[in-house]
């Protein structure tokens, strides 16, 4: 009987099986940020266990509220900083070098096919785009991950989602994943892994695959997974080139993690990309999805471009191509947050930042802030935001605010019109 990708990774990392079918896995990487890690650090110290299993496998960043907005967030940063120094964690990204964790860590080459990765952050599933088993966990699991380099998981079943055909113009990975979540519902993938495959996924860049995997958690999924191919190898090549004689050899080695053709799935779903449309959420759950057409005319107060879902260079390029030559609507304020310093730098050199500023966008430093209503773009009661982020929960971006999730293209078009609208209205037209 063949194996799914998750089964292969579990088999290669399992060090124990507990009663009830829970596996204890050895971890290749433990990622940390300043919201969920400081309490873990303090608790370990209080237990007399202020140790780390391997400083080279721990990567840490300050990203959620940065630069610090008040004394409390400054304290969280201080705890992280001192801990990283104390334990010689060399991959610690402090202010100036920091970016949104799920954009920054892939960019640094920290994730490889076949890896097990945990982080005290639910969107850790993003890294499954590299064919890794990457899962969000809580602070206690993070503590044990830091201390021992292990984590427990129930052996997950897998849902295989095949996206056939080719995406029409104006339809992006964000539209694909929202369409899939609508079908799976918000707990349709709980305790399950989602493998994304098919020609439309094969045609996607790593950035788009990260967008796809990023929202697996919004269907309850433990992680999303894309199979490794030449796109994966090309992205990783600067970090892996010393380990392989050529790209073909790297691909061959990584292909061992691809699911077997006769793997057994909990469920298989097929979608046709060519029939997909730009979509947007309504209500307070990410499975409440309508087409942009159905939601056209909905007034917005703020447009937000950024986050671990859609703050990468590809997203900024797409949004800028829509915005170019236009001004945002008078009644709208628009915020763009490139997800990492490298992305910011590329956007600057490519002239994208100028395009956003000319249109009337506020450009902020890389941070998660606005997505979870902590800083840099919090909504007031009753306000509406067109956002490229991942959660439309009630109060997510500010108490009493409404969030409509959409692609960067749709968000950019909405900024110009002032109401939810399709990007085809503006793209390439002055």
């Amino acid at each position, binding site marked *: 009987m063949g194996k799914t990708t998750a089964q292969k990774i579990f088999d290669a990392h399992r*060090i*124990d099986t*507990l*009663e*009830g079918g*829970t596996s*204890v896995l050895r971890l290749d990487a433990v990622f940390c940020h300043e*919201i*969920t890690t*400081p*309490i873990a650090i*303090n*608790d*370990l110290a209080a*237990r007399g*266990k202020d140790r780390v299993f391997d400083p080279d496998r721990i990567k840490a960043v300050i990203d*959620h*509220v940065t630069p610090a907005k*008040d004394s*409390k*967030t400054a*304290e*969280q940063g201080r*705890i992280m900083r001192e801990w990283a120094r104390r334990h010689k964690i060399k991959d610690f990204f402090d202010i100036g070098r920091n970016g949104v964790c799920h954009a920054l860590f892939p960019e640094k080459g920290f994730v490889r096919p076949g890896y097990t990765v945990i982080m*005290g*952050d*639910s969107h*850790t599933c993003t890294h499954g785009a590299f064919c890794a088993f990457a899962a*969000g*966990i*809580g*602070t*206690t*699991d993070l*503590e*044990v991950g830091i*201390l*021992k380099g*292990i984590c*427990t998981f*129930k052996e997950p079943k897998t849902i295989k989602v095949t996206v056939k055909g080719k995406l029409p113009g104006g339809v992006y990975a964000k539209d694909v994943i929202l369409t899939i979540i609508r079908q799976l519902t*918000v*707990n349709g993938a*709980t*305790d399950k892994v989602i493998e994304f495959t098919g020609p439309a996924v094969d045609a996607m860049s790593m950035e788009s695959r990260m967008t796809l995997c990023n929202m697996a958690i919004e269907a*309850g999924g*433990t992680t999303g997974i894309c199979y490794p191919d030449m796109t994966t190898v090309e992205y990783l090549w600067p970090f892996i080139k010393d380990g392989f004689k050529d790209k073909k050899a790297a691909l061959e080695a990584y292909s061992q993690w691809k699911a077997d053709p006769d793997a057994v799935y909990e469920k298989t779903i097929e979608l046709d990309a060519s029939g997909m449309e730009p979509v947007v959420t309504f209500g*307070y*759950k990410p499975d409440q999805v309508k087409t942009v057409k159905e939601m056209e005319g909905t007034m917005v107060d703020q447009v937000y471009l950024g986050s671990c879902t859609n703050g990468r260079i590809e997203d900024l390029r797409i949004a800028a191509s829509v915005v170019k030559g236009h001004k945002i609507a008078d009644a709208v304020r628009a915020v763009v947050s490139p997800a990492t310093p490298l992305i910011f730098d590329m956007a600057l050199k490519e002239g994208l930042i100028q395009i956003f500023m000319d249109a009337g966008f506020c450009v902020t430093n890389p941070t998660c802030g606005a997505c*979870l*209503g*902590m800083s840099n773009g919090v909504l007031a009661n009753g306000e509406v935001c067109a956002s490229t982020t991942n*959660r439309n*929960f*009630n*109060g*997510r971006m500010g*108490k009493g605010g409404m969030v409509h999730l959409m692609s960067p293209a749709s968000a950019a078009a909405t900024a110009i019109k002032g109401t939810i609208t399709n990007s085809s209205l503006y793209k390439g037209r002055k």
Partner: protein
Amino acid sequence: MKEFNGKVLFLNRSDINTDEIIPAKYLTEITKEALKSFLLEDLTLEGFDPKRDVAEKKVVVTRANFGCGSSREHAPWALEVNGINLVIAENFARIFRQNMYNCGMIACELPEKTVDDLFKEFAGKETELATDLSRNVFVFKSGASTKEVPFSISGFDKALVEAGGWVEYADAKY
């Protein structure tokens, strides 16, 4: 081991997310105790008033997919510092469920029909629950009516509850 007995809070809704259990703006706190007065502050549920309804409750009974969304362990902690160590639901989001047991708390799944019966029989009434971990039975009591509900818990989850959480267990064993 923690206490799993006391007054029951019924939350009649599915998909209650961790942003509703404890809003992100309180994630800047670095002690669990600081979360105490903000539990369920942003819960969308008609007629629910967190200040009035959370007081003195020790158990939550709710519907499907409780604890979805963010991985924040602040959600179990906000329950814990209010003395709530037991949540009963049709099912849970993976991370929330694991966080509960990792803290030595119980997230117990019961069939939809059983949960529905509990709501019909006890919601809206002053209800007490006693947990018998030796027999794996919950005993619900309200006025003259008493109901015994059996539950299952895996050996590993029970070990975590008995050990008071995952850190000591893991460090001793691995």
